[in-house]
C-alpha cells in the first residue's frame, strides 16, 4: 500500500525552494527581508548592539539633536534614544509575535473547522467572522482595551482576537481548495487516517499561504499596538514600546522636535518591510493572488 502513496507525496510542489529563488528575483522583497531581519537583530541583541544603557541618565545632554554620539538624539532625561528604541522594540516585537501566534493558531483552527465540517457549522462560524470584519480595527481595539485592560497579556489576546476572523477566512478558503485535490482523494482511498492526511498533506500545503498572511498580521499588530500605546491605552509605563516612545516624543515635541521623529520612522520602516515581504510571499504562495 505504501508504494502507492509514496509517489503521490513526492509529487507535492516544492514551495520552499521556489520561495528562495523568487526572493532573489524581486529586489524590493529581498531588501525588505534584510531590513526587517536587521531590525529584529538589533532588538533581540539590544544588550550587545545598543551603544548605551536605555536607562543611563545624562543631564548635560537633555533633548540632544541627532549626532554621531547619539544618532537618534536624547530624551527628556538625556537617555540615548537609539538605545531606547532598540530596547523598546522588545516589548513591541514580543507583543506582535505572540499576537501573530494567537491569530494564526486560532484563525487556522476556526477556518479549518469551518471548511472540514461544512454545512451549518461552516455557516455559523463564517457569519460570526463577517460580523467583526466590518468594523474599523482601531475602534474594536479600543473597546476591547476598555473591556480587558492593557496588560501585555491582554494586548496580545486583544490583537490576536482582532486578526483572527480574517485569518479564519483565508484558512477556510485554503483548506477548501486542498480538499478538492487528487492527492487528497488518493490519500483517503489508500486508507490514510485523517490526522495523518492533515499532518502530511493538508498542513504542508496550506501552511505557506498562512505564513504569508502571518507577515501581514505582524505588520498590522505593530501598527495597532503603536496606535493604542500612542493614545495612552496600550503598553503602560514603566514598560516602553515604540508606541510609548513616540507618545513621549509627541508630548515633548516643543522641547525637541527630533524626539518623536525616529521612533515614528522605525515603526514605519518595520511595518513597510513586513508588508512588502507579506505581499511578496502571498504572490508566491497563493495561486489566487498571482
Amino acid at each position, binding site marked *: 500500500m505504501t508504494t502507492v502513496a509514496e509517489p503521490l507525496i513526492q509529487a507535492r510542489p516544492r514551495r520552499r525552494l521556489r520561495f528562495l529563488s523568487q526572493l532573489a528575483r524581486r529586489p524590493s522583497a529581498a531588501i525588505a527581508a534584510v531590513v526587517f531581519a536587521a531590525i529584529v537583530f538589533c532588538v533581540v541583541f539590544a544588550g550587545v548592539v545598543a551603544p548605551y544603557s536605555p536607562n543611563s541618565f545624562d543631564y548635560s545632554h537633555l533633548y540632544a539633536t541627532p549626532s554621531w554620539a547619539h544618532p537618534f538624539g536624547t530624551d527628556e532625561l538625556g537617555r540615548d534614544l537609539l538605545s531606547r528604541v532598540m530596547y523598546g522594540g522588545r516589548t513591541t516585537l514580543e507583543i506582535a509575535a505572540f499576537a501573530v501566534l494567537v491569530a494564526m493558531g486560532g484563525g487556522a483552527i476556526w477556518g479549518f473547522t469551518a471548511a472540514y465540517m461544512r454545512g451549518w457549522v461552516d455557516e455559523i462560524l463564517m457569519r460570526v467572522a463577517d*460580523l467583526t470584519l*466590518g468594523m474599523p480595527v482601531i475602534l474594536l481595539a479600543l*473597546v476591547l482595551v*476598555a473591556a480587558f485592560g492593557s496588560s501585555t497579556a491582554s494586548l496580545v489576546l486583544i490583537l490576536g482576537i482582532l486578526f483572527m476572523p480574517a485569518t479564519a477566512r483565508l484558512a477556510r478558503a485554503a483548506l477548501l481548495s486542498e480538499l478538492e485535490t487528487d492527492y487528497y482523494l488518493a490519500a483517503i482511498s489508500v486508507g490514510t487516517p485523517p490526522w495523518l492526511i492533515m499532518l502530511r498533506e493538508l498542513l504542508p500545503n496550506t501552511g505557506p499561504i498562512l505564513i504569508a498572511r502571518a507577515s501581514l498580521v505582524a505588520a498590522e499588530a505593530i*501598527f495597532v499596538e503603536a496606535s493604542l500605546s*500612542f493614545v495612552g*491605552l496600550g503598553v503602560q509605563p514603566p514598560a516602553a514600546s515604540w508606541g510609548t516612545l513616540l507618545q513621549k516624543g509627541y508630548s515633548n515635541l516643543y522641547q525637541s522636535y527630533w524626539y518623536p521623529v525616529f521612533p*515614528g520612522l522605525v515603526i514605519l520602516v518595520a*511595518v513597510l518591510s513586513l508588508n512588502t515581504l507579506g505581499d511578496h510571499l502571498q504572490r508566491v504562495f497563493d495561486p489566487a493572488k498571482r
Partner: protein
Amino acid sequence: MIQYVARRVGTSIVLLFFSSIVIFCLMRVIPGDPTITKLGGSIQGVDPRALQAIRHQLGLDQSIPEQYVHWLGGIVHGDFGRSYYSQFPVTTLITERIGATAELAICALVIALGIAIPAATLGTIWRNRFFDALLSGFTAIGLATPAFVSGILLIVVFGVKLGWLPTQGYVSFEAHPLESLKGVLLPAITLSIVVAAPVLRVLRASLIDVESASYTRTAAGKGLVRWQVVLRHVLPNAAIPALTTIGIVIGGLLGGAVITEYVFARPGLGTLMVDSVYQRDYGVLQALVLLAAAAFILSSLVVDLLYGVIDPRLRLRVRGEAR
C-alpha cells in the same frame, strides 16, 4: 430594482440590529461598576441605599435583556442615554463634537479622492515607468504609515519648523471659515494619506485588469486616442471594484479619525471615544461604537445601491429574477 433595494435595506437593518446586540453585550463585559464612575472613583462609605438609588436611576438594577430593550427603545426615539461620567445626555455630547469630525472627514476625503483618482488615471494614460514607480512607492509607504507618524512629521515641519499652520485645536466653520480651514488642513492631509493609499492600490490594480480586456483593444483599434480609451472605456469599468474600497474606507473614517484627532487635539468624536475608554464611560462608548457600525453599514449599503445604478448587468439580473 425596487426589490433589490428593499432586500439590501432589509439586510442592513438586520445587520445593524445584530451589531447593537453585540456592542451592548461587549459593554457589559467591561469590568468596573459605572456607579463608581458616577460617584467619582470610590464607593467606600457610601450609604448602600443611596447606591441602590443611583443604580435604579441609571437603570442598572434591571436584567440585561431589560436594559437592552430600554436602550434600544431610547435610540429609536433619538435618545442615547446619559454619560455615566459627565451626566450630560450622550446626544448632546455627540452633536457638540460631530462638527469637528465631519469637517475633518469631508476635507480628508476630498483631498484623498482628488489625488488618488486623477493619479491612477494619469498613470494609465501615460504608461510611464517612472510615474508608476512613484505611485507604487506612495501606496506602499501610505499603507505602512500610521496616522500619528505622518501627523507628527507634518506638525514638525509645518507647525514647529516653518510655523505656517496651526497644529492644535479646532475652530468651528460657522464662526471663522478661513481659520477653520487653516486648522483642518494638516489633520485632513494626515487622514487623506490613510484614505488615498488603499483606494489608489485597488484602482490601479483594476485599471491594469481592464486594460487587457478585449473591449479596450477594440476601442484602441477603432482609432480612439489613448486618453479617450482610458476615460471612456477603461476608467468606468475599473471604477466598480474601486467603489467597494471607497465604501469601506468611508465607513472606516471614524477609526482613522480617532488617531488623527488625538494627534492634532481636535475635540471630535475620536477624542470623545478615547476619553470615554479612559473614563470607563460605556454610556458614551456604546453609542459611539454603534454610530461607527451604522456609518459602516450605511456606506456599504450606498455602495451596493450605486452598483445597481452603475452596472447595468446587475440591474438586469435582478430584474430578471423578479419576473
